[in-house]
């Protein structure tokens, strides 16, 4: 068998899940997209894929999908999935179905060597790439860089035929909850800093959390705040805490020392509220509001409550 690879991407509402595109690139541009609204994803693969097969299969169902995919991919030596939740579910099911070894949690899927990560990513193990295998690629290890030579992927569709298989019934898919979301994944964050400490700090951070919820943002804080015990350390953004990468960041009473901003990623939009117009956080902001952060939060809370009441009245 030649050293041919193919990626399988589990698609939910046209979204490839974390690491899906990386898996396609790692497999050299050949991919099967299976799941819901796969055609929508296909149109976004310019620069990433050469050869795409679409299987519109509805809700995630690992046993049935493994059955349907097995004949489509058995001709390929290496089958690559991303180690996202869906990929990690589907890959072993497929490996069992095809009676192939599973190389889980790979960092690199080379032609001769597959390197997998063990012990929480601290140890790497180089494996001789078997003739036939299923592998999952750790999301994020490769990065995504479009290959401009891959302009027009060929696209074909295959009918999904579900054989007899035991799978769970999907009752509903719930949207992200900002308040409980892992800060590192949060697309919107409201941060609070030293200026919110002092008497009543607990209530103020509670207020910040509620304001965050109202705009779909998760709450984070600086080290001074977490050290004061007002907010748990899992919510500390920066050098000794969590590294985040939101699209929107709202900083309340944060001066923006580099130990904080180094953990901020590259937000598209930054709003900062501070009494010191000259601090680095204000310099970083698209909208820098020179005002008292605590009073501003009060005003924001009042406005949002008012809006909610208006909506309730109809």
């Amino acid at each position, binding site marked *: 068998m030649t050293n041919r690879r193919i990626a399988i991407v589990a698609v939910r509402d046209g979204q490839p899940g974390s690491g899906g595109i990386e898996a396609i690139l790692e497999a050299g541009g050949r991919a099967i997209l299976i799941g819901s609204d796969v055609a929508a994803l296909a149109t976004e693969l310019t620069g990433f894929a050469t050869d795409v097969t679409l299987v519109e299969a509805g809700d995630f169902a690992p046993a049935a999908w493994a059955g349907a995919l097995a004949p489509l991919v058995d001709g390929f030596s290496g089958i690559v999935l991303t180690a996202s939740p869906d990929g990690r579910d589907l890959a072993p099911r497929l490996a069992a179905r095809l009676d192939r070894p599973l190389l889980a949690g790979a960092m690199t899927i080379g032609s001769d060597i597959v390197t997998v990560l063990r012990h929480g990513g601290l140890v790497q193990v180089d494996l001789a790439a078997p003739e036939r295998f299923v592998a999952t690629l750790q999301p994020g290890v490769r990065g995504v860089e479009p290959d401009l030579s891959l302009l027009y992927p060929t696209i074909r569709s295959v009918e999904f035929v579900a054989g007899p298989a035991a799978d769970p019934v999907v009752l509903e898919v719930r949207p992200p909850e900002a308040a409980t979301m892992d800060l590192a994944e949060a697309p919107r964050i409201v941060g609070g800093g030293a200026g919110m400490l002092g008497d009543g700090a607990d209530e103020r951070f509670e207020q910040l959390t509620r304001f965050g919820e109202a705009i779909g943002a998760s709450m984070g804080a600086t080290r001074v705040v977490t050290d004061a015990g007002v907010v748990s350390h899992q919510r500390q953004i920066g050098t*000794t805490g969590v590294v985040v990468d939101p699209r929107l960041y709202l900083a309340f009473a944060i001066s923006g020392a580099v130990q904080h901003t180094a953990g901020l990623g590259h937000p598209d939009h930054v709003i900062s509220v501070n009494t010191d117009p000259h601090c680095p956080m204000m310099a970083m902001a698209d909208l820098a509001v020179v005002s008292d952060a605590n009073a501003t939060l009060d005003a924001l809370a009042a406005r949002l409550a008012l809006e909610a009441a208006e909506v309730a009245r109809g």
Partner: protein
Amino acid sequence: MGELLWSPLRLGPVTVKNRIVFSAHLTNYATQDGMPSEQHAAYYAARAAGGAGLIITEEHSTHPTDWPYEKLIHGFNHDVITGYRLITDAVHRHRTPIFAQINHNGGQASSMYSRLPVWAPSAVADPLFREVPKAVSANEIADIVASYADVAQRCAEGGFDGVELQCSHSSIVRGFLSPATNRRTDEYGGSLENRARLLLEIVDAVRGALGTGLALGVRLCGDELIEGGTTIDEAVAVARLVDATGQVDYINTSIGVATASLFMIEASMHIPPGYAMFIPSAIRKAVDLPVVGVGRFKDPIQAERALEEGHCDLVGVVRGMIADPDFVAKARSGHTDDTRLCLSCNQECVGRMGLNRWLGCIENPAAGRESEGVGEVHLVRKPKDVLVVGAGPAGLQAALAAARQGHRVTVCERDVQAGGQVRLAASVPNRAEFGDLIRNQLTECRRNGVTLEYGVTVDAAEAARRGVDTVIVATGSTPSRPYWAGDAANVCDVRDVLEGTASPEGSVVIVDELVFHQATSVAELLADRGCAVEVVSPGMVVGQDLGITLDLENWWIRAGAKGIVQSTDLVAMDYSDGVLTLLHHLTNTNRTRTPDWIVCAVAPLPLDALYLELRDSGVEVQRVGDCVAPRRAHAAVVDGERVGSSI
């Protein structure tokens, strides 16, 4: 945090204990005859004590034809070994490995010191030195290769753990590698294989001299950023050739050329952190050797992220460790917040070096003076009560230096916050990092138990009422009004603009007699606000002193984009009836402007009234900073340290 950053790594025979490298940089600490000094030893030892994983010294010249600046270490002189021992013993006391960088600067040099023609692959003059070099003959090439081996051998004898070949920045090897400077038609020119021949011959010879016990590294430039120079694809190809020799243990990287594009090597705060990361990343994809990444690494988290994302295996932190030798130790022990962060201002490190002075640091008065004991703690037997008036850089430094020796210090600041002029300077676009100077000083004040009182005006009566043992006056300076300005309401000072007490609109002429950031910062600020801005200067270029901090080129790029007009050799003479008269001093002719606003960046006046009053009333009093004589921030810090630590 820091799983990779704090993990050890093998560089051939040498194991480093963490991934932070204090990489090669000029210090000007050598003696005038090119010998390493006690100043070197103490400087490097302090960074070793502070936890650096690896130290790489500044370049050592391999050949007598290479002496481009006065205080270059003469590796070619056998007598250096004594000095090498000084350095390596001091560093090894902290179990930190130290490598020597060896180099021949080639044509990026002057014959001023050596009195010999400079050597280069081809007779192409460097744009900075403007000296046509001698194209070296085959014999001379052999001489160069042999000289590298000699110096490597000397480094081994001198106790170094490894040797790095400088093949970027300013180097004859770079000269050969780069199509821009190599025009040869023999086997050392033309194809990449030919241009890399000298490098590979040197690698061979140096490895032969070192044996297997010492590490060998090669520093390559990933993009020279000059017309016709080496770019990333070719740098990756050279890295592959180096890797293929099997004789090299790591690759260091760089960007820019030390003469034509120096401002991209030692990037100031205007250039984003990690800007050169694409270079180690691309090289690392191509080779298995460990790769060092450099380029404004300011914070451990930024370094860890670079390692996690696989862009490099080690990170070079130079200015961060000049500013705080304990950068690593503090980060490692979870006290990153106590780090004296580098400002990337380039004023006392790069700037002083450019003026042939020894390397220092704007906020670390001990940098380069470790061997003299500056900054050391000597607790006094009888602590005094000290009152510092003014919380600008001078006052804060005096306060923390005095408190460090055990005195009880209170700082009174008239304003509601600390910082003085630094706060204003940091308030303009892209200059925010300058404000870290004050934040760092405040952190150190807090750690040393200094009491800060804001919104308190101190006069002689208040000082007397407090009954302290000694007073340090740090009241700063005030803008002066040029004689020609009269009392026109539309003439103001740069400080008025930054403080918001004046808001120029329409057409603005900025009269710049300070030739530093004051005028250019305000010019950008006003241009961003929509003003039509012209900067006039009596100098040959606007913002002349931005040259030494490597901010000039970027100012030109931004000024051009913002439509800021720069006019030189003009001296403001008169402003009346809305007409500003400027004397073009080269031709002794007058020019006129009729702007809506005139903003002055002119020499300020010391605010010394309080000092004089206290002195005359017999109180024990000293003064520091601008109220002695208005200067730049580094002078304020040096004053403060000297006076504060001597109480």
